[in-house]
């Protein structure tokens, strides 16, 4: 009995302290994603000039008459470029076959040091330290014998997906 009363006292005190003060906490993780601004500009149209009947006319991507585009996005970032060329140039109901040549790209505005895309329809490339990516595209056409005279045009579409 002499042990029971002190022990009871101890338990009551000890139990009382256990509920007297407590600390509990929880943490939440916050998130936010900043989207990048991107611009895409056509700098020059592809221009074959005047054609000679029966002669192939080729504009290389490095030529001054090549189409030129400038993409600006995130810096040093891989992008996927897809170029859709026209199958024909048209002048009213008249058509002229368009042949593709592998386009090229560079992070600086210099076609002579540009790199060829893996495919004629484009491929992956990387933007430069300022986010720039230049793309050049040429092609080949030939006016057949009996081809109607006129201005033949076609549309080239370039799609870029930033990874």
């Amino acid at each position, binding site marked *: *009995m002499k*042990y*029971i009363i002190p*022990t*009871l006292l*101890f*338990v009551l005190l*000890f*139990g009382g302290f*256990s*509920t*007297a*003060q*407590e*600390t*509990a*906490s*929880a*943490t*939440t*993780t*916050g*998130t*936010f*994603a*900043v*989207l*990048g*601004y991107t611009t895409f500009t056509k700098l020059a149209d592809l221009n074959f000039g005047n054609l000679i009947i029966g002669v192939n006319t080729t504009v290389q991507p490095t030529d001054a008459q090549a189409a030129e585009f400038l993409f600006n996005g*995130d810096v040093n970032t891989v992008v996927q470029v897809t170029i859709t060329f026209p199958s024909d140039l048209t002048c009213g109901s008249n058509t002229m076959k368009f042949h593709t040549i592998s386009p090229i790209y560079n992070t600086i505005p210099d076609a002579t040091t540009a790199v060829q895309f893996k495919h004629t329809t484009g491929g992956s490339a990387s933007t430069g330290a300022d986010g720039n990516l230049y793309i050049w595209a040429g092609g080949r056409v030939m006016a057949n014998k009996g081809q109607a005279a006129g201005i033949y045009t076609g549309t080239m579409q370039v799609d870029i997906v930033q990874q």
Partner: protein
Amino acid sequence: MKSIYIIFLLMLSSSVLYCQSDLTVIKINDISFGTDFGGREKRLDHSDVGAAKFQIQSKIETNATITIMLPGFFISADGSEKIPVSFNERSAAWSIIDNVSSRTSFDPRQPLSLSLKQNQVIYVWIGGALHPSKSQRACKYSGSITLTVHTLPRN
């Protein structure tokens, strides 16, 4: 011998009393500011879906002090980029009911004292504002908010 047995039982019960926690704090929702372009302030009200949400419950009647550790910045995964975060006197709110209309706003930068009834549940919501610069690098940013509840015996 009988006395020793009783002592043993009482000691066992005392240790059970000591281990039980009367206070729980649970994170219900993480805070999410979503996505946006740099250069625009991204404000999140405590009543917005993306606000942080906590649940506090005490099994006993007690006085509680809530302190919230707030981040100064949200930081990119590689640690090289920061977005300042700010909070004001209405960034947070609490309520005993889980809805918007019954909330009481408070400043999460200051400790909040509340009286908790037995088994009462308190909800706390926290919003804030991010201030990304125009040249803010496009990537994911994150930060942590820790809510701590300290209970004291009621006088």
